[in-house]
């Protein structure tokens, strides 16, 4: 089997991809109705972003 081409993502791109995939899975596993799923996916994605960026900013003073 051929090896895969290396994928290079920035921190933020990897973060967005991670948040999107996990939010989607959580939404489908956690809710049954389509409308509830969409709300849950968007809310989960939003929280991933807020918490991730928040932790990033909280660590900023210690980064140098």
């Amino acid at each position: 089997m051929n090896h895969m081409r290396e994928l290079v993502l920035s921190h933020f791109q990897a973060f967005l991809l991670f948040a999107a995939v996990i939010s989607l899975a959580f939404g489908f596993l956690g809710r049954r109705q389509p409308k509830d799923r969409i709300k849950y996916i968007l809310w989960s994605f939003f929280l991933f972003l807020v918490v991730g960026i928040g932790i990033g900013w909280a660590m900023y003073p210690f980064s140098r």
Partner: protein
Amino acid sequence: MSEETNEAVQEPVQEPASPAAKAPSEQRALGLAFAGWILPGLGHALQRMWGRALIVFVSVGLLVAVGVSMRGNIFSSRGNDAFDTLGYMADLGTGSFYFVARALERSGTDVAHANGDYGTRFLATAGVLNLLAALHAYEAARGRKA
């Protein structure tokens, strides 16, 4: 109204299910969870939860593919410390995809750079997510979750 009449009107009380009667349901639920672990989404597909099956399959597959493409570390059973063992257990959570990842990974890991380190996290997350989905399939089969 006499007690006799009362008893005649009452509906028959159902006997609680015996452990022997529960066993097939429990075994089926465990079987579905096992199927979901071996092939992501299969536990839900066998319960005709097509949307969930597809999403679990695609999510776990995508995370594994991205993790391997980013040259993340796929832990083996010959770990040096507890963290390697934990990583192995998380990676093994992807079931058959673990072996697909090992087959795809030919250029080695590169955790010296952030990209490879992110890949390692993607792979571990894929495993944990699949274990969560297998647990959900088990709970759904037991009638605890819809």
